[in-house]
């Protein structure tokens, strides 16, 4: 607990999101967090988590309505550590097939694509899956034996800015980015707050990231 004393972890409060679950998951490791509802709190945080259990467009809309879109966008390459979960990771790219025309935070060049089955029908990746990481990579505590809970139907196909340091997951005919780290940013397609012990650990590691 002591090591977290000088940190302030903020969870961006998106109405449709899972902020409460993330708050409880951090609490299980003795980490206190605050709900980020405005720019003033945003700027005081050392670590910011963007939870997302909604569509790409709904998350962007929520950020805009709270006047958080631009302030958050400006935190790329700052001292503040940022973590996006599920749609919270997807919005770090340019756009998504889910809501054509809606612009993301634009930190990365990727566009999110729809997950389809072999009949070209929209599919959901809902359940537990593993992550493939290269041996020499240090992505928090993730290993090839780790399993995490996923629930989404759009995905990040690749992160061109991170040619090496990322983990990927296979589902149906697709390979998706399931975790990545670049500059002051981390993204996770899965839900650590619903992934039992390994999920709680990965959140703790994020908060310990300096």
């Amino acid at each position: 607990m002591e090591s977290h004393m000088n940190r302030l972890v903020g969870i961006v409060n998106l109405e449709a999101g899972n902020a409460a679950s993330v708050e409880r998951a951090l609490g299980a490791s003795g980490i206190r967090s605050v709900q980020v509802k405005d720019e003033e709190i945003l700027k005081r945080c050392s670590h910011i988590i963007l939870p997302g259990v909604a569509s790409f467009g709904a998350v962007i809309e929520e950020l805009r309505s709270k006047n958080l879109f631009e302030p958050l966008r400006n935190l790329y390459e700052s001292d503040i550590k940022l973590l996006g979960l599920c749609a919270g990771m997807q919005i770090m790219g340019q756009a998504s097939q889910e809501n054509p025309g809606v612009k993301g935070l634009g930190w990365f060049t990727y566009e999110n694509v729809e997950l389809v089955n072999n009949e070209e029908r929209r599919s959901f990746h809902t359940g537990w899956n593993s992550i493939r990481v290269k041996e020499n990579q240090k992505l928090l505590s993730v290993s090839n034996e780790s399993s995490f809970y996923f629930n989404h139907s759009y995905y990040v196909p690749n992160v061109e800015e991170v040619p090496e340091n990322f983990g990927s997951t296979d589902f149906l005919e697709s390979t998706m980015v399931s975790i990545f780290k670049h500059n002051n940013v981390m993204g996770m397609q899965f839900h650590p707050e619903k992934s039992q012990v390994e999920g709680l650990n990965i959140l703790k590691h994020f908060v310990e990231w300096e």
Partner: protein
Amino acid sequence: MNTLFRRIIPKILISRHSNLKVIGGITTRQYETFRFIGSPPSQARIFESNMADEIILINLDHKSIDLGAFVDVVSKVSSEIFMPLSVGGGINSLDQASKVFEVGIEKVVVERALMQNPGEVVKIATRHGSQSLIGSCSYWGSSTIPIPARLEARGVIRISALPARLKLMERMGVGEVMINDASRDGTREGSNLVALKTALSSISLPIIDSCGFGKTQHFVDSFEAGSSAIAIGTYFAFIDQSFMQLRSQLANHGIRVRIK
């Protein structure tokens, strides 16, 4: 084709104890209350520590546990665990489903609402997404004993009606389907593989097989036949074998389950 891990899902069925008046977990046998097995939050914690992949919490007692009391139980269970939770029992409308989702759960389970309130079920699928909706179907699988009237009155269908019911559920927008053979419920004699194969050939949704699981071989048989998940109540309430042993044995049979 790359697939997900096969899931093992403990079912916590709740009812109010007639003497003690407390809400507790129960096991059933052919859909009749069989035995009280303790507090739902404690059970959920145990299941989580055993790496259950998901938990299903069902209210079997809508007469004495109303939606408010049920949401209270769901909230207590949900605050104890960090894993997916699915919830059902008496949820009949979008409004009721939304009240349960607000607690922070992953999926709602509907059964009787599919027939009694189909319009509302479609609304739940539209508002919360198909991946958040499990359609449950109880059927009578025994070919020797006819379906008891008490179960028919509660919406349990004949096995011959299964394909049509499952296709209807798929059209209504449920994301996965749970099939329960009421005649095998609590018997530990093995699940109904004929019904499972019928279900798999009728629809393309993931199938949760349920009722009758008693030993490891039953899980192997069901997974090998093609179920995506297995939901069990009695099995985990009355066995000496641990969840981790079951999982290792399944892995040894070449079934993709989480072992770490």
